[in-house]
């Protein structure tokens, strides 16, 4: 039995297989409508989410399965002090697969230690968010036609942004990837990511503070939100939250085939005027998220 806790739990071959399956699901959805009939997905969301929870639930429903779960820790026995280990051992009696989001980093590892059914990490604090990574990879591959030979700009909160960390982990395994890391100094990529991932894999990268100075170099611009919930200090959050705003003027500096991705939700970091630019594909990315989670559920349940 396999879990998905970190993107590195999957080999590039396994990732390629999931992306291929997701592409087939996109092309021939009818083929998959009943494949999970009788199976149940439990969504255990100790932290609120719109897209990730609904996306997992939509994926299971599209496959003909059922869903159950909770959408905040207040609605679960966690509010009474129940441990993750006990909750998981209980939910294993009700479901066939679990998608779990938890504000504490490493919680899905604890869950996997006690689970008799596959665990999908749907985000653990500022640590990992592997299903978003699969979504991002599928979006890039489907829209760009490749996952290698890319200059990828990561912009915004690179310190706490788990989607950024997970995507970097995944992309360094492909050939000729260059990163441009755009952030204020306080929100730079943690040193362990620089040293243990980029330097270790001989990946080219530069750090920049101004988005407009690097726009013309990018094949992909991955925008992120400065997340209020990651700050202990409100003042720091207010100072950082509007550091980057992507607007139509900045888009003029970009290549004609550059793509803008965002894990969403966005607040102010992408001006709504950018939405109508064909290079802005963050809402398409949401749809790819459903396909890739369908593919993941099928893979982890070994139904393919």
């Amino acid at each position, binding site marked *: 039995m396999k879990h998905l806790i970190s993107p590195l739990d999957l080999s590039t071959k396994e990732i390629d297989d999931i992306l291929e399956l997701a592409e087939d699901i996109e092309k021939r959805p009818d083929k998959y409508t009943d494949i999970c009939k009788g199976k149940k997905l439990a969504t255990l969301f100790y932290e609120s989410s719109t897209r990730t929870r609904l996306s997992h639930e939509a994926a299971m429903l599209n496959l003909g399965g059922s869903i159950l779960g909770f959408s905040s820790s207040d609605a679960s026995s966690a509010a009474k002090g129940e*441990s993750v*280990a006990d909750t998981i051992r209980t939910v294993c009696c009700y479901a066939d697969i679990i998608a779990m989001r938890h504000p*504490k980093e490493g*919680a899905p590892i604890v869950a996997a230690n006690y689970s008799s059914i596959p665990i999908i990490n749907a985000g653990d604090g500022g640590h990992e968010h592997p299903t978003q990574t699969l979504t991002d990879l599928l979006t890039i591959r489907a829209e760009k036609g490749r996952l290698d030979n890319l200059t990828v700009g990561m912009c915004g909160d690179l310190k706490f942004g788990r989607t950024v960390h997970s995507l970097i982990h995944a992309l360094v395994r492909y050939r000729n990837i260059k990163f441009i890391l755009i952030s204020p100094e306080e929100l730079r990529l943690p040193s362990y990511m620089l040293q243990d991932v980029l330097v270790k894999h001989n990946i080219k990268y530069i750090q920049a503070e101004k988005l407009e100075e690097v726009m013309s170099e990018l094949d992909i611009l991955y925008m992120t939100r400065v997340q209020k919930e990651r700050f202990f200090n409100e003042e720091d959050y207010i100072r950082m939250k509007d550091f980057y705003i992507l607007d139509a003027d900045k888009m003029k500096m970009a290549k004609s085939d550059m793509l803008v991705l965002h894990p969403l939700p966005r607040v102010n970091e992408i001006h709504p005027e950018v939405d109508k630019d064909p290079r802005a594909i963050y809402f398409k990315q949401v749809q790819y998220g459903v396909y890739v989670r369908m593919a993941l559920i099928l893979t982890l349940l070994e139904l393919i």
Partner: protein
Amino acid sequence: MSTLNVGGILEGFVLDHIPAGKSMQIYGYLNLDKLDCCVAIIKNAKSNKMGKKDIIKIECPIDHIDLDILGFIDHTITVNIIKHKVIVEKRQLDLPKEIINIVHCKNPRCITSIEQGLEHIFLLTDKNKETYRCKYCEEKIISRNV
């Protein structure tokens, strides 16, 4: 200057070349306070190699102490194993691959900060830099800085 004499031991350990000032930390990590045996701590002893050093002598059966943790604290410490008052082995210390419940993860976002009964586990991720990372959140610690 007068010389302090601490008698030899029949069976047990002499931990030598402990950096001066670290002996009480090691006393704690090895849980020596819980052992019902004779322990001598010598602080700031003269050392040609180190200037000054600490030494710990422990009289106990040699399977009573897990020495792996010493490698984590400082793998340059000399461990002499004594039987019948004779040094029968000088054990080389190495960095242990994992350390359990020795240091606690300080990341307030780590699941270890709230989950009851969860062991604090750090895994050796870079031997050359003596780097360990929390199994759960990947928080970094350097063994020699602990």
